[in-house]
């Protein structure tokens, strides 16, 4: 989807502000969100693409002002609710409980002792390569044209690189396809390429001199170039 998360080339966000001596977490709850995210993914409650698409569907003004871990929290909750892993009513009730008792630990609201954790069915969070035996259509040096597409759902072809001409740098192997994996349509793994774009192709006359962008793009985003 062409949402505000697709930030490449956008203007108006001001300078990059580096924080000196940045702490690992800015508040205790951020570490809790990180732990929940690992638990949710390891427990196969959702995949990374569903999670990312959950974040992308935040209200645009909220997305832009939310911190990183707040985005994670909102994406996670949206997906957990959609999948029925958590109910809207129980979440509302539990939140009301902690609003009343802001100093209570998370275990305070449990009806009994925490359930032992179900055996995780996933052991890696970085398992995206599939040995399907598929033969890549393109090879290094091939000219390609990205599709002019504006899907309503999740995609990893950034808006700034639609309908643009590039050159295949290399093939990364056969990777799970986010555009289907985010929507319960399966992994549909396909070749993933590093595609090189000259900045003038992307930004026209406004491009900086002597610049290129390499973007990782799945085969079905690409058409043969001239």
């Amino acid at each position, binding site marked *: 989807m062409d949402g505000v998360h697709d930030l490449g*080339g956008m203007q108006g966000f001001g300078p990059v502000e580096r924080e000196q001596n940045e702490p690992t977490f800015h508040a205790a709850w951020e570490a809790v969100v990180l732990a929940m995210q690992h638990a949710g993914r390891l427990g196969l409650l959702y995949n990374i693409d569903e999670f990312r698409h959950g974040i992308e569907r935040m209200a645009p003004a909220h997305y832009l002002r939310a911190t990183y871990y707040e985005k994670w929290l909102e994406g996670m909750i949206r997906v957990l609710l959609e999948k029925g892993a958590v109910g809207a009513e129980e979440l509302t009730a539990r939140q009301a409980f902690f609003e009343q008792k802001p100093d209570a630990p998370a275990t305070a609201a449990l009806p009994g002792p925490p359930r032992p*954790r179900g055996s995780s069915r996933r052991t890696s969070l*970085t398992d995206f390569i599939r040995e399907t035996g598929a033969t890549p259509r393109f090879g290094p040096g091939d000219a390609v044209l990205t599709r002019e597409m504006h899907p309503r759902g999740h995609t990893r072809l950034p808006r700034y690189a639609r309908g643009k001409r590039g050159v295949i740098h290399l093939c990364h192997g056969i990777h799970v396809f986010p555009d289907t994996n985010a929507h319960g349509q399966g992994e549909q793994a396909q070749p993933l390429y590093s595609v090189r774009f000259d900045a003038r192709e992307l930004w026209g006359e406004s491009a*900086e001199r002597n*610049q290129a962008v*390499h973007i990782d793009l799945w085969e079905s985003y690409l058409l043969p170039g001239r």
Partner: protein
Amino acid sequence: MGKNHPNVDPYIVSRVRALESLLLEKGILAPDAVDRVIQRYEADTGPMVGARAVAKAWTDPDYRRLLLDDPKAALGRFDLDYEMLMVVENTEAVHNLVVCTLCSCYPWPVLGLPPTWYKMPAYRSRAVSEPRAILQEMGLAVPAEREIRVWDSSAEMRYMVLPRRPAGTEGLGEAELVPLISRDALIGVAEPRATAS
């Protein structure tokens, strides 16, 4: 946020605790999971493995080749099993820069948790369209004749920059080089220091 200000919005805090409570109740979140996350990242937030691999590459030509050609094998030397990394080499002709415009993808296993600026819209929006300007603002002047090559991490591949070894460090050994290699240098927004600061 950022700026060391803790984010303690009561709405968010109660929302996080509510979800934590439900995931504990349902057996999704292990009771010690939060403590383990804090321990892991509090202890290993710096670019430990990344900096060590770069220092080794600077002092060992064979390892340098391995790090560029087979990063998984190269990282294995540091007991890290990670196959999704590509290492991109700075040269006289090319300066590499890593970003994720669509979210905030970052090579956690080699660089630790990402800094806030990497995740904010200013960097994500501008790194692909005006990298030379943004690097200049961040204190890194890249010569006009040097190509800036931006890696937008749109898939699950992750990128780390192999910076050039600073002049004047010829006498230093691998262990002495590690502290010169900042996280920012491995993202591509800084050069390694020539002397320990």
